[in-house]
């Protein structure tokens, strides 16, 4: 079961960082700055992947 959940959601750092990026996107949309979210999310997600690659 543990392997099942890890395959689906990854580990805690994965959940927290991706959750934070999505949360930032949701906040920008709520503030009416959807275009900011559209430009910011891809670099943030790439930076997240780079950070995981270095871990």
């Amino acid at each position, binding site marked *: 079961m543990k*392997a*099942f959940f890890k*395959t*689906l*959601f*990854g580990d805690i750092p*994965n*959940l927290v*960082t*991706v959750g934070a*990026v*999505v949360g930032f*996107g*949701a906040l920008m*949309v709520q503030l009416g700055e*959807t275009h900011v*979210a*559209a430009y910011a*999310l*891809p*670099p943030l*997600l*790439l930076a*997240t*992947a*780079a*950070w*995981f*690659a*270095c871990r």
Partner: protein
Amino acid sequence: MNEWAVFVPTFLAATVEWVEAFTIVLAVSLSIGWLRAGGAAAAALAALALMTVVTGGVLRLGGGITALELMIGVLLLLFGVRWLAKAMARQAGLKALHSEEKEFEETRDALKKGDRAAAWLIAFKGVLLEGLEVWLIVVALGSHSAHPLVAVEGALAALAMVIAAGAIIRAPLQRVPENTIKFLVGAMIVSFGTYWTLEALGGPATWPLGDWTLLILFAFYLLGGFAISAMLRVREAPEATR
């Protein structure tokens, strides 16, 4: 959405996972024979097929399209970021490339300690766990597509190809460019995840270019990923020579 946009990532992701599953089944078959090892693999595939039918059906029936899009988008991000990170780490030399030969030897070592039932279970669990990632991609891409069966066809085509290649070679499939495929699939999955997550949050006007945005996102993640890998490789190289 274009059917190829669903078929290609599913086919590529499934190829990587089925190759890994094949290595495990091959190692087990040397202990308990092809019939039993194949039976374990078939049982795992049947479980995955059942999961795909049930979850795919539930996802298409229940909830609004926006909630579904958000859920699938976030799941793809959680999954895709890990694939992209792993591919970047391997490309940069920070992590060893996945070796089917090593996987094969490790499974053979594990089999020495157990009995026939344990060997059957290793084959079943191996195919099930590798197949979970295929299931996730099939359900995620299929449930958002007008042609959900295209995703299933992509996974089945990859399975047929790996079984055919495995039957001919009868050895671990080492010549599959696994990390390149992982890079491509990681970039594709994160692109879909980004697109659907933000579209669900901000509405259809979020991406003025519509589905074409997926190509731009894919190019961004792929080229950005390669550039960062190259930078990490350069940064690590002087440290390694010290």
